[in-house]
């Protein structure tokens, strides 16, 4: 086709030759793509970017839910948050739950994905099967697992007692409660992530495995030298998204017991739960905003660390 209207006019014609109607048509033709993509940008500006930036402004002010802006206070809110023992406990808990959920989840997702990446009978059945937990809402997962992990005669403690293991105090000991909450996250997301990794594994040409077999590589060697390098970009993607999501965990710790305060001793208080409690239980928006920005920094730092780590690990696999 020679008279493609999609291509911009090569020779700029003198303006006088265009009628106003033509000029309008020309303008609307040029403007149309921007109109089509504008909803995202407008919405992101109003409900995404602006609130995030304005959080910094609020964090420098005394600001209560009812009274509103109570004046500039500099870094007082930050000082008060950093001086609060609960903040550091919440930071520790968030990191601990994040590690307990992301590391085992990634390992299991890799194992499940490589089990699925074979000539299985009933592929669709198995793939759907591992995805089932994904459609259970985190709130529902938290209510169910909160009971499975009950301290006295909970189903998991009952099960452990069969092997003579004494009851674990899932709602008392910090580490045990972190394990329980991480289990909820893993329950919902492991299958989902294994499908993501499976897709990446299937994009690896089968000849590579054949060549590896001819070179005498066993299963484990194939996995380390062919599979891992082959799915590297996807692996990094999964690690980064689970970092951003994992550090903001809220639903599960909020509903882990009936009080929603993160435990009597803040055993499973996470940073987002801490933010919520300051903002909507104590109505201190200035301090809540300071927490939000500190959490933002934590996420940025860990996102970058993970990016570097996962890059290094997966390149070492290729050597």
């Amino acid at each position, binding site marked *: 086709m020679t008279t493609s209207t*999609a291509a911009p006019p090569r020779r700029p014609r003198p303006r006088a030759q265009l009628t106003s109607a033509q000029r309008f048509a020309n303008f609307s033709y040029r403007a149309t793509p921007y109109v089509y993509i504008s909803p995202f940008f407008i919405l992101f500006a109003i409900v995404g970017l602006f609130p995030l930036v304005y959080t910094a402004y609020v964090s420098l002010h005394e600001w209560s839910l009812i009274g509103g802006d109570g004046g500039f206070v500099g870094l007082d809110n930050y000082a008060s948050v950093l001086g609060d023992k609960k903040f550091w406990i919440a930071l520790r808990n968030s990191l601990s739950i994040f590690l307990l959920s992301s590391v085992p989840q990634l390992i299991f997702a890799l194992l499940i994905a490589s089990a699925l990446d074979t000539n299985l009978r009933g592929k669709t059945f198995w793939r759907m099967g591992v995805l089932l937990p994904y459609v259970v809402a985190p*709130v529902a997962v938290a209510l169910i697992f909160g009971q499975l992990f009950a301290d006295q005669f909970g189903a998991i403690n009952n099960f452990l007692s069969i092997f003579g293991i004494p009851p674990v105090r899932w709602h008392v000991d910090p580490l045990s409660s972190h394990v329980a909450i991480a289990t909820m996250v893993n329950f919902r997301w492991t299958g989902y992530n294994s499908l993501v990794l499976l897709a990446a594994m299937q994009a690896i040409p089968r000849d590579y495995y054949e060549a590896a077999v001819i070179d005498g590589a066993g299963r484990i060697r194939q996995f380390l030298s062919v599979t891992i390098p082959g799915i590297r970009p996807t692996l990094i993607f999964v690690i980064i998204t689970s970092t951003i999501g994992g550090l903001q965990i809220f639903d599960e710790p909020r509903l882990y017991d009936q009080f929603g305060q993160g435990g009597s001793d803040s055993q499973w208080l996470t940073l987002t739960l801490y933010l919520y409690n300051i903002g909507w239980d104590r109505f201190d928006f200035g301090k809540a905003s300071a927490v939000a920005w500190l959490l933002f920094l934590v996420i940025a730092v860990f996102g970058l660390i993970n990016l570097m780590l996962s890059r290094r690990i997966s390149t070492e696999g290729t050597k």
Partner: protein
Amino acid sequence: MSAASYSPAQLARFRRRRMRNLAIAQRRPGWVGYGFLGLVLLLSILPLYWSFLVASGDSTSARDPNLSWFPGGHFLENAISAISNPAVNFWKALGNSILVSVTVSASVVFFSTLAGYAFAKLKFKGRGPLLVFIIATVAVPTQLGVVPLYLLMAQYGWIDTMQAVIVPALVNAFGVFWMTQYLSQALPDEIIEAARVDGASSFRSFWSIALPIARPAATMLALFTFVASWTNFFWPFIVLSPQNPTLPVALSLLQANYFVDYSIVLAGTLVATVPLLILFVVAGKQLVSGIMQGAIK
């Protein structure tokens, strides 16, 4: 080296060896593979089945060390107690959840397809950088802007309304990226040009050509948006009141008493999960292929 220098017996041996290598490379699963996946499946189902056992029992079931593997006869009774609990507003929550999830899914599909169409098929200045910008926003934890977002909603008098939940979710970066990817390979340039030659306006060619062609990807996007919307908790929990909740917010109220009967709580939890379980049975295949297609890109 030519094949003629080998005897037929040698060639046959080579072929057998090659077939064996291929078989290993194709990796047929043994019982270990099936056993492992079976265990994974069991662990995926067991928590749900256990909560059904508890929900069909009585108030002691959740703590019963000798809980029967067969459901008791009280599920309906417990589900009705949960649904009719006046503090929970179950029917209102169900209506709100349907309203929010349907509206958000429709809107995300429409705006994402529109933007995807522009990015995939229309030429304009800054197209590349703008698309990169959109993809980069995925990594921005916008959830941390809740305080100003709440102030904004208060300003407009939207606290405790469904607009407050719907409007921030009308379009998202993932949707735009997803539709751009799909349309750039599924929609041939020639069709759009032909439509333009025939005098179709830009919006007309979007509506009558791009939208129908986008249907497979749009269906998947709608499914994922629906699930995300239906299970969303943090923001609705902040901005909605117990009198006007969505289902997850209502569920969170089930155990907010000092004396909690967990057979009722879990019955309510299961009832609220049923719509998505139905969706999973009907469209689980598409969810699986959606995740797998999204991963490669």
